[in-house]
């Protein structure tokens, strides 16, 4: 299968790598919580079982996708990318503006550990089973998102392999760093990554939805980069404006509250 031009393959590899990085870090946090509580055996078993289910999903889904006409596939995946990408971008804007808190892997690790601890009771083997199930669920859920992202950004002849390589590189990177560091990867700039991924997936969404509807984008690859630049500028400006607006709303509220209290 020939690679697409680097104008489109480059963003596809990058989007798949960065998006998968975010998902794999989230899965790793839970797997690490399981390993910390119950040891690496249930963590690895749960992870391996989830990877087997994911491999089966890919094996079943792959041939089915080949049968769908390319325009219909681009339209459906384009719409899904718009919903997914714009959702991530909206949340990344709100986090950058301070309206919602940043994702904290350390806090998630602590809460997952506490949650698994309260769920386990009974014999040693049932505790390992429950812990392994937590690892299985986390890897399966995040893995399904990775599969969707790879299929979505690779939904064009020649892009599936680059997208898969991007995702695989992310998995290996997180695994290597995680095994060495042996802690939640809390220093990964998650919101920055999600911002970038939201921008790229939204751009891909517009590009492919348009192609699915018969739009012949002028400049092809250049149009994709232009969409990404526009979404990035929109996100940054909106976050900056909302940061000021929200901070003002909070300080106005604090002043009103203390004025009422002092009466």
């Amino acid at each position, binding site marked *: 299968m020939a690679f697409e031009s680097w104008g489109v393959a480059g963003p596809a590899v990058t989007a798949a790598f960065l998006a998968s990085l975010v998902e794999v870090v989230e899965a790793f946090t839970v797997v690490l919580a399981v390993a910390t509580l119950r040891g690496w055996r249930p963590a690895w078993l749960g992870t391996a079982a989830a990877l087997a289910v994911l491999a089966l999903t890919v094996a079943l889904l792959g041939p089915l996708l080949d049968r769908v006409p390319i325009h219909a596939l681009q339209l459906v995946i384009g*719409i*899904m990318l*718009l*919903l*997914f990408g*714009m*959702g991530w*971008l*909206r*949340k990344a*804007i*709100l986090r950058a*503006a301070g*309206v*919602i808190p940043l994702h904290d892997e350390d806090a998630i690790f602590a809460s997952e550990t506490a949650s698994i601890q309260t769920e386990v009771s009974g014999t040693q083997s049932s505790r390992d089973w429950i812990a392994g*199930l937590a690892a*299985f*669920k986390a890897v*399966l*859920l995040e893995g*399904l*998102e990775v599969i*969707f992202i790879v299929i979505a950004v690779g939904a064009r002849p020649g892009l599936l392999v680059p997208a898969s390589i991007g995702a695989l590189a992310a998995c290996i990177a997180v695994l290597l760093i995680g095994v060495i560091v042996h802690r939640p990867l809390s220093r990964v700039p998650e919101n920055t990554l999600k911002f970038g991924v939201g921008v790229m997936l*939204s751009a891909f*969404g*517009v590009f492919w*939805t*348009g192609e699915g*509807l*018969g*739009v*012949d*984008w*002028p400049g092809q690859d250049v149009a994709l980069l232009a*969409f990404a630049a*526009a*979404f990035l500028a*929109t*996100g940054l400006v*909106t*976050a900056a404006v*909302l940061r000021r*607006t*929200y901070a003002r*709303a*909070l300080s*106005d*509220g*604090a002043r*009103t*509250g203390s004025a*009422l209290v002092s009466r």
Partner: protein
Amino acid sequence: MSILKAVVAELLSMFVADARQTVATLLLVAAVAALILALQADPLLGGAILFLGCIVIVIEAAVRETRRRGRRSHGMRL
């Protein structure tokens, strides 16, 4: 069974994080499709409307959520 429910809920939340944003996006795509396919308008015009519409939807969703949280925070302080 609970794993299946968790998987379905997670997959749904991937695409429907904000209901109004989701509905607006789907309506936009439907409108652009009607414009291009049914009304035979220039596809590039439809593409431009799609792109600009998405930008507007993202801005509106972020502003709406900020206002909602600002009002809620204001109300709690009173």
